[in-house]
């Protein structure tokens, strides 16, 4: 049975990339920037021996977007790599080359929040229907459905 | 035979009307046995009849550009073929239409439904219906050789090509199921394959719900084709019962004629139901074969067994004649 990672171990591995704090005994968070996130993921995979990506969570906290990459490994500790993106230009390099399942997760986040993953091979619709209008990102806090826009499905005039 | 009596024989009993009723009854029993073995309840007695009537009333959908007349006629052709085949199998005493070579005729007529399935697949203008039809014919090539051989060995031993004579021969000798057990087993397996039931339902059931040559059949065409398959099962079972289990006869003669007919009819029932029980058990107890496995089973085991049986019969004949 592997030991849980300690904060010092994570801090050493993530040196120079951001601040490290322990949210719980088995969850350690690293706050970093979009430019350094790929390096952080790389270090988590190599130095911290993480081999499983649990989730890529995306939050709109009203002021900016946050992305949290949650990774875990045989040590059963979740390493959460957190970064903030500005609202007007939410771009971040893709992690799908390092983490193959991120291919699907990033498409979902792009559909719902509009975050652009630079370098993603196939950022197409996955979770919203194919006739959903462009540039409407429903999980954003400031999004409200516009009664005059057609969001897909059957046209109401046809239903009559 | 008196023409009126002949007409009654053909049309009512034990001809077409009886055949249709018995076909529905067979389907009911088959489904009931399968359901009970699968821990289910199964349908009520009149379910197959109800299904048939319901399907007759459903909308017939025509594929654009298909040959409607041929598509309509094909299921009827298949149904006519198997119903005619039934007339030559002894049900109560002798068949009045018996003649030398009627065994060959019956075997030929029983292959027509499979050919019709292929034809329907071809006419459907649906690429995958065609593939299903080709599957059905391919399967036929595989099982038909052992099936025919197994059904012809009783003829070899009885020295006649008429089913009625073969049945009569068994009355004074042993049943062929006892004399030719290998042939009996091969005939049962071949019959299961001919009826396209699990484990031989590759053409239709892996394309389970809607596909294969049955895809574009709707309404009355589907009702007729399904009825053909049911009637096929009855004719096949009756044929196997006649050739291997002695048909509607027992080794003792019963004096009042009418009593012997009733007993004969009862025997016919019992024997065909026995065959049905075996077929239903095989269907429930197995999963589907892949077609390459069917190839193996057909050629390696069934065909060799059938040829072996033929050789044994020829040797036995020679030995008896010279004895």
């Amino acid at each position, binding site marked *: 049975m592997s030991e849980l990672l300690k904060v010092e171990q994570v801090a050493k591995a993530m040196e120079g990339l951001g601040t490290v704090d322990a*949210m719980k005994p*088995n*969850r350690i968070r690293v706050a970093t920037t979009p430019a350094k996130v790929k390096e952080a993921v790389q270090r988590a995979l190599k130095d911290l021996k993480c*081999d*499983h990506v*649990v*989730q890529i*969570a995306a*939050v709109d*906290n009203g002021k900016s977007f946050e992305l*949290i990459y*949650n990774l*875990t490994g045989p040590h*059963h500790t979740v390493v*959460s790599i957190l970064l903030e993106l500005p609202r007007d230009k939410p771009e971040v390099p893709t992690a799908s080359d390092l983490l*193959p*399942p991120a*291919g*699907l*997760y990033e498409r*979902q986040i792009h559909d*719902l929040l509009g975050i652009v993953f630079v370098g993603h091979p*196939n950022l*197409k*619709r*996955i*979770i*919203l*229907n194919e006739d959903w209008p462009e540039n409407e990102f429903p*999980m954003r806090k400031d999004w409200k459905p516009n009664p005059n826009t057609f969001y897909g499905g059957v046209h109401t005039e046809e239903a009559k | 035979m008196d023409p009126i009596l002949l007409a009654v024989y053909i049309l009512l009993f034990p001809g077409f009307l009886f055949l249709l009723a018995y076909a529905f009854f067979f389907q009911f029993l088959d489904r009931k046995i399968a359901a009970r073995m*699968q*821990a*289910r309840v199964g349908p009520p007695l009149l379910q197959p009849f109800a299904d048939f009537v319901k399907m007759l009333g459903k909308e017939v959908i025509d594929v654009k550009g298909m040959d409607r007349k041929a598509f309509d006629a094909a299921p009827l052709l298949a149904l006519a073929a198997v119903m005619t085949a039934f007339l030559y199998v002894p049900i109560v005493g002798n068949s009045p239409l018996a003649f030398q070579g009627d065994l060959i005729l019956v075997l030929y007529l029983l292959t027509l439904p499979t050919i019709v399935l292929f034809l329907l697949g071809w006419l459907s203008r649906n*690429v*995958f219906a065609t*593939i*299903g039809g080709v*599957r059905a014919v391919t399967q036929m090539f595989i099982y038909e050789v052992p099936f025919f051989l197994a059904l012809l060995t009783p003829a070899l031993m009885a020295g006649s090509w008429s089913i009625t004579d073969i049945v009569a021969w068994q009355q004074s000798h042993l049943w062929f199921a006892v004399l030719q057990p290998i042939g009996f087993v091969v005939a049962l397996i071949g019959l299961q394959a001919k009826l396209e039931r*699990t*484990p031989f*339902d*590759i053409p239709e*059931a*892996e*394309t*389970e*719900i*809607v*596909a*294969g040559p049955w895809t574009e059949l709707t309404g009355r065409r589907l009702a007729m084709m399904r009825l053909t398959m049911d009637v096929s099962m009855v004719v096949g079972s009756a044929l196997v019962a006649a050739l291997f289990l002695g048909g509607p006869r027992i080794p003792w003669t019963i004096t009042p004629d009418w009593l012997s007919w009733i007993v004969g009819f009862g025997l016919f029932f019992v024997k065909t139901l026995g065959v049905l029980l075996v077929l239903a058990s095989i269907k*429930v*107890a*197995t*999963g*589907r074969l*892949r*077609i*390459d*496995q069917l*190839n193996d089973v057909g050629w390696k085991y069934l065909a060799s067994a059938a040829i072996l049986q033929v050789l044994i019969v020829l040797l036995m004949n020679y030995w008896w004649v010279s004895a």
Partner: protein
Amino acid sequence: MTEVVVPIGPHHPALKEPVNFKVVADGETIVRLELDVSYNHRGIEKAAEQRDFVRVVPLLERVCGICSHSHTTVFVKGIEEAMKVQIPPRAQYIRTIVAELERIHSHLLWFGVAAHEIGFNTLFMWTWRDREAVQDMLEEMTGNRVNYGINEVGGVRRDLTPEQIQAALKRLPHLEDRIAKYRDMVNKEATMMIRFRGVGKLSKDDILKLGAVGPTARASGVDYDIRKDDPYIAYADVPWQVITDTHGDVYGRTLVRIGELQQSLQIVRYCLENLPAGPIKITTPRAAPRGEILSRYEAPRGELVHFIRTNNTDKVERLDIRTPTLANWTSVAVSLVHQNLADIPVIVAAIDPCLSCTSRITIVNERGKKTGEMTWDELSAHGREFYRKRGRA
């Protein structure tokens, strides 16, 4: 090199839910897989932001029918963690019992469906009949066969009476018997082994790289099971084991699921026999303090994750759900590459997709510009045809 794009459209007669994925095939071999899972999207995450905790629980129950208890449990335990409250042990045991019964009925369902895929309908009927025993237990305990409604923030809503416990314990030996028989059947039944062995094989490294979870991952020797790695409710108290296998193919996944069935029965028995006395819920505050919780749960299909942000109100600020089937799709895509179109039904069924898998395949032959349509079953049929040709050649 003819590349054939096989778009698998949303409607399909034989399976449960709609999905659209395009399989790009080079002849018979699959080159890549593209995915569109929008057909069951109902905006649940957005709806959860506008409902208070009490009303979110029934909403989450309906994310999925087979893993409804999983979604509610992972959510309420996350909120309880945010509120820093501990629910009474009796409630934890009851949650565990329902969770394991859910796992049993889900695995039995999968087993029946897998048998149906290969044409072995008798096994399908038998496993689903045994499932009825589990559904009866659930109905007696919770009042419903799916969407049990037993969770709430702070505990469970219904208690187990001694009669219910006795009735449930009486049903267990029969289930244990049946599952032992199925285990034998999987090892001896030739038809099943031939269709399952060697199909969809993924090595341990591939599984980890592709992010697969649940029995799909454990069949390749990956030892991750949230019930052991990050224990919750009563799993730390109950003696049980994680089941892994090394085959890595559909056969391995079958063995893992059967092993898990046996373990689940053990857990249910232990919990029923050792149910601690006490209250079944505690009163919780209305609002949850500000915080961020990553709540993980081992659903029947794999690791289910709810990422919850709370903000001192009685609503969540963000609920981000990652279902196990979404995690497993990439492994399906990759395990189908270099396999044959023939194996699509069996491989997809092997991850036990809860998200969707209803498909009608349209085959576009790019060079010949011909189109044709295939249903799932025709694809299965095509599978047989393909194996026949391979058998001959």
